């Protein structure tokens, strides 16, 4: 029911929901098999994500945040606890939770840019014409219309990530999953794409679950930030950063200091994925 909310409505405040949260991660414990044996990556994590919100999961490298995203995407089943998406228990992988990965090589090299965006739509039942039209719209949105007929190997890293974002958004997912999508980009491109993503999210009102290890990125992009500790991880804090204001404000500075303290980042440690300062 809540899924039927037309676009362009006000983003709901937390607690302002009718049918439960869009995503409910409920005391989830996650792990995977490696060479020596089973490794627990996520000890116990809980959070909720409401429609229209932008939730950032931040944590040190190897804290299991990507594993968590994979579990939400349906690739991994939790050992304990539950993941509910629109009330469904641990749904299998599907286009309702489109993912943007960190890797540049997530596009199909044998398809053009347009083909990469249109093909998933075809798979999900759109006619050839409708898929192409919608793909063009979303390439317009990510300002890539001029590159529609190129192949991925002819694009820069930043453009590839924008195609991946267009591909995910064109599916009009209930939840957009982003796994450090800007992690491999240079600082300038990363900053540009962060701004771009904010504009696109404003425009489409898509619900976002974004995983990063960059405090700046979390502050720039998020409504709410879930901070994970070292693996096997737990939630060590959840902060609301919606009304923080720009990076020049005192509140922003305080929040950044707080997050740095939580993540035990040395004060002047170079945070290479920084954006605004």
């Amino acid at each position, binding site marked *: 029911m809540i899924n039927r909310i037309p676009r362009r409505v006000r983003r709901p405040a937390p607690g302002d929901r009718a049918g439960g949260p869009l995503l409910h991660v409920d005391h989830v414990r996650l792990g995977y098999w490696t060479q020596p044996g089973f490794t627990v990556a996520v000890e116990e994590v809980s959070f909720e994500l409401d429609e229209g919100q932008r939730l950032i999961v931040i944590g040190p490298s190897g804290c299991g945040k990507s594993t968590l995203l994979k579990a939400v995407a349906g*690739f991994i089943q939790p050992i304990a606890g539950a993941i509910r998406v629109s009330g469904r228990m641990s749904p299998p*992988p*599907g286009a309702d939770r489109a993912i943007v990965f960190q*890797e540049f090589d*997530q596009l*199909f090299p*044998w398809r053009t840019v347009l083909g990469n965006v249109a093909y*998933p739509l075809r798979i999900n039942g759109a006619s050839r014409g409708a898929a192409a039209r919608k793909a063009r719209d979303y390439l317009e949105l990510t300002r890539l219309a001029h590159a529609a007929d190129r*192949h991925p190997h002819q694009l820069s890293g930043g453009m590839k990530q924008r195609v991946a974002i267009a591909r995910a958004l064109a599916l009009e997912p209930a939840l957009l999953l982003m796994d450090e999508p800007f992690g491999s980009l240079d600082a300038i491109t990363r900053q540009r794409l962060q701004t771009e993503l904010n504009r696109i999210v404003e425009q489409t009102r898509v619900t976002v679950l974004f995983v990063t290890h960059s405090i700046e990125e979390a502050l720039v992009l998020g409504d709410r930030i879930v901070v994970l500790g070292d693996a096997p991880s737990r939630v060590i804090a959840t902060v609301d950063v919606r009304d923080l204001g720009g990076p020049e404000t005192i509140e922003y500075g305080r929040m950044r200091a707080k997050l740095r303290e939580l993540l035990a980042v040395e004060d002047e440690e170079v945070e290479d994925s920084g954006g605004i300062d």
Partner: protein
Amino acid sequence: MEASTSTAAIPRRPAAFGWARLPALVRYPIVGAVLVAAWHFYAVRKGPLVMATPWQTLEAFWEGWRNGSLSDPTWATLRLLVEGVGIGAGVALILTAFATLSKFGEDVLLFLTAVLNPLPGVAVLPIAMLLFGLNETALRFVIANATIWPIAIALNTGFTTTNPTLVAVGRNIGLTRVRVISDVLAPAALPHAISGLKTAWAFGWRTIIAAELVFGVAGSSGGLGNYINNARQYLLTPQVFAALLTIAIIGVLFETLFGQLERRTIIRWGMKSS
């Protein structure tokens, strides 16, 4: 920095005769002419029963293609080859898909390729003759066996080395496991598939000529190997050479064909550098 700059500035020593500076269109005909001349004089010395001269070869080639005595066996051989490689590629694809879907299938494939791939293609000819008799089916079987394993190995390498992120994307956009194979793994494995097909084609080509030579006269129409064998028996040396020329030309044509295929697919998509 300094050193590398100065190295880059040194031009390559010009070749003494400027051979390397001649365009390929001039170089290759000269090489060809020299070799053909050498062939000619050697053939004249050896006598017409042992060696045909280039001119005699060309005459026999022209005659054979004009009256069908050479072209018919060529088409027969090519048809068998295409059928055999087709069957081989199909079986290889099924085996590899099966290997991708289950661990048991993977074990079966690895076991079969380990045992059967090192086997020379012609070696199974006696078994094929026992199984199917002296007919084309036996030849198809031999060619298929010679081509399945190189293709299956190449496909399996392509499938297993496909970037896992692409597979994850495929499942994320809602592809079933079978569609992941056909729509993600298969195109991603295309560079391997093409090189496997090249190897398979070369294996198959050698195998069928050899098998036909062994076969002697059989089937409705003999193939190229058969033609060579006959010509040798009747001491029609120019015909033997004309058949070899045909085989060489077809080899070059197939090379070109595969090159075209690569340029239109994997090179255009940046999956292989040209």
